[in-house]
């Protein structure tokens, strides 16, 4: 059925885009016909969002051409793309909750009569547009904040229709929808299709992609590796296109069975607003990898264990003793440390010195560190070769200095502001900060995000060394090679649950299949 399409609505040719020298998109070709739902799939970081931002005018491509409705176009701003007829339904809805449906739809283009906003026209036009897509039951003068997420998406779509959009970009539209709402969205997308609108549909969820699209483009590492007719494609084939790359980098040896110690952390039936039914055991000496798609709950799990967004149900025990992780402080007292994925926002205090950053945690809780940490202190001593015990200011600083040396920090000066350091060195400082507390359990969320290749293996070695010295490590990673290369065991999250557990020799396909839900999970 492709190939016969007369003139595409949108044609991207050789689109390339780099950020700070990193190639995010590389020679991407993609065509959308009128009335076609074209799905774009790919792993995290494959370049999907960047591609959508190029099409919608948020970013400008470094190379390549965009042809829209038969003419070559350059969009210098989202506004220009909108005026040309490209609407976007953002993953994070761009609506004003305090305003009505009609006010949101016409924002910036309110119809006027004698110089004043014509509310009657606003309401009736909105009602007309809503009726045209079968959503006539939605009153246009309702406040958007009172609507559910699905209905808010309808409002975004109507906003695009009011702009006479001919191409609609939907970025993970079902991420926040309940099952029955997904059905409504399907129906809506099909109606738009009948109206001749082209839809670019970005989704992690393969089921939707197969239900809705006529063609699928697979992005991997910034390239469009395949465009497939949905009817001739199987989920397995799609997953193979999405992954399948050689393991090029080196990872430290995994834990030998005799190196595994007792169970450090036990979680039973725990949950909160983002997580449900979490059961897991983490042993001393092991690295437990946590995989899953963005929003699957993998980061929420780490944050819950650190008390940053605590569990509201279930039990947690550290070294057999029940603990309540109500706050980061409580987690720290239980011997848990957390390295956030958002290093700039949550990891470092950019304007403070290297030393101040490294001392942050000791200064906060050194007075309350429980005696039971003694065992882990021994573990930290192996790394740092310093004496534990009561430490005064000078001794504390000296100890942190030794830890900084132990993590092989190559900063010029320790009184330098940390923001001038490379990502890898910043991460080492963050690590040293936690080692100063001699934690028994270490939670890493994307430990090597934004860190260059050389520094990565240094971080990987450090993580492994900590495990070998007796810490229990939980490592969230969206990078499959890292997840597979580092972990002794892997759990994969989906929709706030643990979808399944995999052994160290699992393949990328196994992880992706569990993450997107094509594999029926084994005993979970």
């Amino acid at each position, binding site marked *: 059925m492709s190939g016969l399409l007369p003139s595409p609505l949108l044609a991207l040719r050789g689109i390339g885009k780099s950020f700070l020298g990193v190639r995010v998109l590389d020679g991407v070709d993609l065509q959308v016909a009128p009335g076609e739902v074209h799905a774009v799939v790919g792993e995290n970081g494959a370049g999907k969002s960047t591609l959508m931002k190029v099409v919608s005018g948020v970013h400008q491509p470094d190379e390549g051409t965009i042809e829209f409705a038969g003419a070559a176009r350059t969009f210098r701003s*989202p*506004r220009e793309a*909108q005026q040309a007829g490209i609407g976007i339904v953002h993953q994070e809805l*761009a*609506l*004003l*909750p*305090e*305003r*009505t449906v009609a*006010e949101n739809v016409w*924002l*910036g*283009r*309110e119809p*006027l009569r004698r*110089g*004043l*906003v014509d*509310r*009657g*026209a606003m*309401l009736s036009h909105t*009602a007309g547009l809503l009726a045209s897509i079968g959503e006539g039951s939605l*009153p*246009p*003068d*309702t*406040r958007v*904040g009172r609507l559910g997420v699905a209905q808010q998406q309808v409002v975004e779509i109507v906003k695009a229709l009011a702009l006479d959009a001919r191409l609609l970009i939907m970025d993970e539209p079902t991420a926040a929808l309940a099952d029955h709402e997904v059905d409504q969205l399907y129906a809506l997308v099909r109606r738009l299709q009948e109206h001749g609108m082209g839809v670019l549909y970005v989704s992690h969820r393969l089921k939707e992609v197969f239900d809705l699209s006529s063609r699928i483009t697979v992005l991997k590492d910034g390239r469009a590796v395949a465009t497939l007719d949905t009817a001739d494609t199987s989920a397995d084939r799609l997953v193979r296109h999405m992954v399948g790359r050689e393991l090029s980098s080196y990872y430290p040896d995994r834990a030998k069975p005799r190196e595994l110690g007792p169970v450090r952390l036990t979680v039973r039936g725990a949950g909160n607003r983002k997580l449900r039914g979490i059961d897991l055991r983490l042993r001393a000496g092991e690295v437990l990898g946590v995989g899953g798609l963005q929003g699957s709950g993998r980061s929420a799990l780490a944050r819950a264990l650190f008390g940053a967004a605590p569990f509201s149900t279930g039990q947690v025990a550290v070294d057999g003793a029940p603990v309540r992780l109500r706050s980061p402080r409580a987690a720290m007292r239980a011997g848990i440390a957390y390295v956030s994925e958002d290093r700039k926002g949550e990891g470092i205090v950019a304007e403070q010195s290297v030393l101040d950053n490294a001392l942050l945690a000791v200064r906060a809780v050194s007075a309350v560190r429980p005696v039971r940490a003694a065992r882990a202190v021994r573990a930290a001593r192996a790394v740092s070769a310093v004496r534990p015990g009561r430490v005064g200011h000078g001794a504390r600083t000296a100890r942190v200095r030794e830890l900084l040396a132990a993590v092989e920090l190559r900063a010029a000066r320790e009184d330098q502001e940390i923001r001038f350091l490379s990502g890898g060195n910043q991460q080492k400082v963050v690590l040293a900060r936690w080692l100063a507390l001699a934690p028994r359990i270490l939670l890493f969320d994307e430990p090597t995000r934004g860190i260059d290749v050389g520094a990565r293996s240094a971080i990987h070695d450090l993580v492994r060394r900590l495990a070998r010295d007796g810490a229990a490590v939980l490592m969230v990673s969206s990078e499959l090679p890292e997840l597979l290369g580092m972990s002794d065991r892997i759990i994969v999250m989906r929709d706030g649950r643990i979808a399944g557990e995999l052994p160290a020799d699992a393949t990328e396909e196994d992880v992706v299949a569990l993450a997107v839900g094509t594999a029926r999970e084994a005993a979970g």
Partner: protein
Amino acid sequence: MSGTLSPPARRTPPGVFVALVLTLAIGWLVVTIDGGRLFSLPTTVSLLHVATGLGIVAVGQTLVVIGGSLDLSVAYVVSLSTLVAAEAMAGGDAALLPAIGLTLAVSAAIGLVNGLLVTAARINPFIATVGVGLLLKGYLDNGYDGPAGKTAPALVQGLGYQRVGPVPLAFLLLLAVAAAAWFVLARTRFGHHLIAVGGDPEVARLSGVRGSRVLVTAHVLCALCAGLAGVYLASRLGAGAPRVGTEGLYDLESIAAVVLGGTALAGGRGGVVGTVGGVLLLASIDAVFNQLDVDVFFKQVIRGVIIIAAVAVYAHRAMRKAS
């Protein structure tokens, strides 16, 4: 035409009116037990006069707050305006209208500076308007030791003391200003865009709204209101008063009235109707305490408690709505 659709979007009136009625009822009871009269002609007139000065400033403040900004220079603009008006009138009726025009022009210019500092120079509104306020304070402190100029007698008799029954003419001016502001917010593109910018500047930008222009306009309107309040105060005092704005706490009280009226300090939600309620509430508390001869400092404490409690109630409601 818009009447054809029932408006479920209309929100229930802000709780400030409930608080207002309660305050008046309890106040009346306490004052009566105390042997006084809360609703006598002199107290009513004085209550409405207190509300007028604060109200005109607060309506302007509502506009900038809805837009996500703030104006802390209003107290000094009020003081300066009384002086500009009274000195330009110089005790005669001849220059009445030009003097009012000059006063408003000066205020608008200050508002323009505020707006440009906040938008073009991207200075935090708090800092920018405090800075402009301090600048004006320097000028006032340096140039004036006490009252100066003389207000036109016609203005004093008209705006200052004319009444319709117990209602001062000036209070009707406040209602007119509030109605105009309400109309601007509800029925003009500028109003819609202002609310959008305050609600989420990024959403507004993506929808093609020119946020800076909108915010500058709001600042000019706010300063114009402060200028108008200055003209009114000049008519009451008969002269320009270099400290009247700060002594009346018009900066903080106007923001308090706005917040009491249910307008979100973060912007994007609220309106002038609530603000007028907030102003009347503050004025009523004032009147009750005056009748009871409550100590001035204690009065301030009670007002502080009321404002904090009100904001806590709003925050609690907002949280419940969010979850």
